[in-house]
């Protein structure tokens, strides 16, 4: 007999996000509803939630870079990043982000995915550089184009990490696959698994790289 009631929690999350309620509130309500429907007592739900929050504090660690980024921005870091790109001949948004994509994939593939990221690299450096390059191609950006270029900078960071990190064999996701399969009596080494991350990494580079070149073309076409 399949127990369907706990799935209501998922529906609550989807509806809550779609209606743009405060996401923290949505998540808390969904957690409590799911737990109660799954025959947990309220205190048990509260304890599970608290335990999970405490165990996952490392997720929030990367924000310790904010004071450094903030102080450098105060002294013109974003402006400097733009100046460098503006002075660089042949720099375009697409080419710049392709270089960043390769860098992010390679660095993640050797196990250093925490080296760059949204707070320490994308906001102070990559996004302002991408915008400066776009202004060179296009002239002054309207707000929509400006948003699209910044969003692409963040997207490029994500694609780079996600489809680079699994090539490194000692990463959590590879160890999870190994552990899960071992539970079924299928024994593999992490290395056997991680080589199979390479074809997808290449596809990710080709697909996202092509989109970045298309972005360049659109920026050029819109130029005044």
């Amino acid at each position, binding site marked *: 007999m399949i127990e*369907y009631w706990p799935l209501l929690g998922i529906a609550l999350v989807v509806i809550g996000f779609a209606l743009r309620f405060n996401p923290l509130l949505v998540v808390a309500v969904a957690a409590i509803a799911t737990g109660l429907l799954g025959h947990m007592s309220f205190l048990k739900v509260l304890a599970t939630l608290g335990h999970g929050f405490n165990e996952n504090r490392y997720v929030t660690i990367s924000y310790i870079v904010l004071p450094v980024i903030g102080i450098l921005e*105060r002294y013109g870091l974003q402006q400097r990043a733009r100046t460098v790109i503006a002075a660089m001949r042949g720099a375009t948004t697409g080419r710049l982000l392709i270089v960043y994509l390769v860098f992010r994939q390679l660095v993640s593939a050797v196990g250093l995915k925490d080296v760059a990221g949204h707070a320490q690299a994308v906001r102070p450096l990559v996004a302002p550089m991408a915008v400066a390059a776009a202004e060179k191609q296009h002239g002054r950006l309207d707000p929509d184009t400006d948003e699209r270029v910044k969003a692409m900078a963040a997207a490029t960071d994500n694609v780079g990490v996600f489809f680079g990190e699994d090539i490194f064999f000692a990463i959590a996701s590879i160890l999870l696959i190994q552990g899960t399969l071992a539970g079924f009596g299928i024994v593999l080494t992490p290395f056997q698994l991680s080589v199979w991350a390479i074809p997808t990494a290449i596809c990710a580079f080709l697909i996202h790289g092509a989109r970045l070149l298309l972005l360049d073309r659109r920026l050029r076409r819109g130029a005044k």
Partner: protein
Amino acid sequence: MIDLHWLYILAGAIFASFALSSARDRTNPKRRGNAAFWIVLTASFWFGDFLGDIGNGVLVLVLVAIAGTHLLGRGSKGSTTVEEREDCSRRLGNRLFLPALIIPFTAFAGTLAFNYTPLKASGLIDPKSVTLVLLGVGVILALAVCYAWLRPPALAPIDEGGRLADSIGWALVLPQMLASLGAVFAAAGVGTTIGAIAGAIIPEGSVFLAVLLFALGMVAFTMIMGNAFAAFPVMAAAIGVPILIQQDGGSPAVIGAVGMLAGFCGTLMTPMAANFNIVPAALLELKDQYGVIRAQIPTAIPLLIANILILYFAGFR
């Protein structure tokens, strides 16, 4: 041994400084709410291990209450103006990049140095969290260099950091919240239910359809949970192992590795993966909080198709 707990103390101190900066910001009408939010987060990082599970649960509810009742705001306290920044940038030149690069360089070179020298055996740093610990060291070094070189007002790093933190606001703890939601989902048996449903609709006799269902199941479940880690054990148990590997004779390495990567395509498309998709939108001050997701969907879908083809052609040779 220096492990994550040292980093939690450092992070707690930084969140406490955000509380101080928020409380001092008279241009923010909701400054008390902001200060309270950062103080509660500081308590979690400093004292979380002593509060017990229920104590931490209450702490989570307090954070949710502050954010959910709209007690968080943003100030308009000026930093330097754009013109001043242009001036500084011209005066200081490309040397401005150096402090920013100290952090990644310390993490990068430090991790390599640690792993390939006798340092690893010395037990100085917990090998499981080397890069994160070195990230913390890099932050301290970079702050020291900024103070010595730029000579900012004493509280400037705190105010500037607090300004960025207030612009991210509640989104800063959303990833951690979603991880705890995942724990509740798991305890309530959500995974088992989804696995049972996926297993029940599996088509007979078509390897391709089974591959398709496995990959789409990974994507859908990843989008619900916000990460592929929760989805993989469930989909492996429902379809991957019994159908694809044991019944149809697929290669376990391909099914495992590429199945997980199919899930990553789902991560690109869901607000539940907040640290990758929602926080950057806040950091970059985008008007559309789903802007990053919109930018990723046209990469995620073709890449998912590529993964399905790799699963089918490389997995069943």
